[in-house]
């Protein structure tokens, strides 16, 4: 055995590799300035259509507001829409971002370079996402401040610790889904259609712009198996209606369960697709 090989494997070196991947992701992110538009402009633009639609639906004198209030538990339709919209935007950006992370590397040719390295496969999946999580939290903060400025919606005045807990519990679900997605994308070339389908399902079932009570029972059942449903419901409750920890505890428990299941699903999808990719030679295809 060649004694002068410089590789020295340990848990510490594996963590360092993970951080190097996060750092690489951060450097590249900074060097493509278009994220500025996405982060600062879309939080304001994206809910606009729904907010004005809701304004139109409530009537010039707000005559239809009580109908909405009865179902949603609040007449603040702006805040209601804004919460759903921002969390959906987060999911959408994650699906594109995390979902295409492997595919972009595959097309750039750097996927093989990473695969050649003696690191855990899961590090290649998780490492860059550490940065993505950080940038998304920054995005959510900017969005919340802009909602205050442009729509007069105060999301950060309630129980911030509880809001952070909800986010903390929903992060593994969203990124688990993103990773599962990202793994499938290196297998199937028509990834765009897959993004449209997945985000479409969330858009239709999660009560992004309307209260769940308005859905027929069969759609509500589907909504109850999607983690984003609980996150949206709880953020609305905490930020707009001053809900407490006790009020949302049942939902938090469900979110915790999702937080365990979704990353596992993501890892399993990755594991099997990676094996298939190595059998079919898909790692180097573009």
């Amino acid at each position, binding site marked *: *055995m*060649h004694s*002068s*090989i*410089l*590789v*020295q*494997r*340990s848990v510490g*070196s*594996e963590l*360092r*590799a993970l*951080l*190097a*991947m996060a*750092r*690489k992701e951060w*450097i*590249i992110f900074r*060097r*493509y300035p278009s994220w500025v538009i996405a982060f600062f402009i879309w939080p304001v633009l994206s809910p606009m259509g729904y907010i004005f639609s809701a304004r139109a639906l409530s009537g010039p004198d707000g005559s239809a507001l009580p109908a909405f209030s009865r179902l949603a538990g609040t007449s603040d339709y702006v805040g209601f829409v804004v919460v759903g919209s921002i969390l959906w935007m987060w999911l959408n950006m994650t699906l594109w971002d995390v979902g295409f992370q492997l595919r972009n590397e595959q097309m*750039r*040719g*750097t996927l*093989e*370079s*990473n*695969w*050649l*390295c*003696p*690191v855990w496969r899961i590090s290649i999946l998780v490492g860059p996402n550490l940065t993505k999580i950080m940038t998304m939290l920054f995005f959510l903060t900017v969005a919340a401040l802009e909602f205050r400025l442009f729509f007069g919606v105060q999301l950060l005045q309630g129980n911030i610790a509880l809001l952070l807990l909800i986010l903390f519990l929903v992060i593994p679900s969203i990124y688990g889904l993103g990773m599962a997605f990202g793994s499938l994308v290196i297998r199937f070339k028509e990834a765009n259609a897959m993004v449209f389908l997945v985000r479409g399902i969330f858009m239709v079932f999660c009560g992004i712009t309307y209260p769940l009570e308005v859905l027929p029972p069969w759609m509500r059942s589907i909504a109850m198996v999607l983690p984003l449903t609980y996150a949206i419901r709880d953020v609305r409750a905490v930020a707009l209606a001053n809900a407490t920890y006790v009020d949302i505890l049942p939902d938090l428990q469900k979110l915790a369960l999702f937080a365990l299941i979704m990353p596992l699903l993501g890892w399993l999808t990755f594991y099997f697709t990676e*094996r298939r990719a*190595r*059998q*079919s*030679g898909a*790692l*180097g295809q*573009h």
Partner: protein
Amino acid sequence: MMSDNTIVEVRELCKRFPKKKTKKEAGFWSKLLPLAGPTDWFMAVENISLDIKQGEIFGLLGPNGAGKTTTIKMLCTLLEPSGGTARINGYDIIKEASLVRQNLGAVMTGERSIYWKLTGRENLEYFAALYHIPRAVAKKRIQELLDRLELSSRADEYVERYSSGMKQRVAIAKALLANPPLLLLDEPTVGLDPQSARNLRELILEIKREGRTILLTTHYMEEADQLCDRIGIVDLGKIIALDTPANLKKSIKQLDVMRLEIEKFDPCLIETFQRLPAVQHVASHDLGVDSAWSIALQTPDSEGVLPEVIELINTQAGRVKHLQVTQPTLEDVFISLTGKQLRD
């Protein structure tokens, strides 16, 4: 059992892929609903066996689509073989894949294996971490490689601004980071201008002189001839010949041709040339000026025959004005083995 200085051992390595349907068969709906199970297989690599000794440069020479890249990808664990086994420095490519990756560095074909939005240095720092090289060691190693590969002056510029040759050198630096005993190079000079390609070949020989083992694939015959200690000629997924370049050339019954223009030539020498044991055929032609003749000798061993011929000419006071020796090339070897040209 692997002998002590065998770095790469391959036994009957195979790779097959399902055959893709043609345009006519794969209509709109069949693409939407994939049919169950492939019906046909395509053998990209079929029963390849070889051993590579420490410190040698081994070349896989063959046309595009011969299976060279597929073989390299299997050896560096990017592609799972369909059959057969291989060991890199004693480690099995399937069961001990991670250890295999620690023992080799690879440069895949094209400019696409490094990050264009990172600088050269940042690329190396990144991969050093992925190769678990301790930070202090990595810093020194990176600077050493940047200096050696003449990248230092632009190490802190984005790779997207580098020339093709520089990008390739960054990729090689990345492969050498962990100081591996084996280097795999897949078509390393493709897309490079002649000067850069020449410089890269010099570098490869330098790397060999350090005691490293190199497996490279190429479809350039001159490159294989210049660099490789031994060559495996690959066609249609199989190794059809394996030997040193010299022996491969000798193996075909193609004769060297020696063409001389000789002034003050004595025609009696023609018979003497014919009687030389290594000479098979002599053609001669009187040029009609200054007793100058053009002589063409066909021989299997031009190197051996030439001194004798020159001496004979000198004893008769003749003067060689022009000499040309044409020897068979590896392309001739390939053609004689397959009936096709190396360049498609």
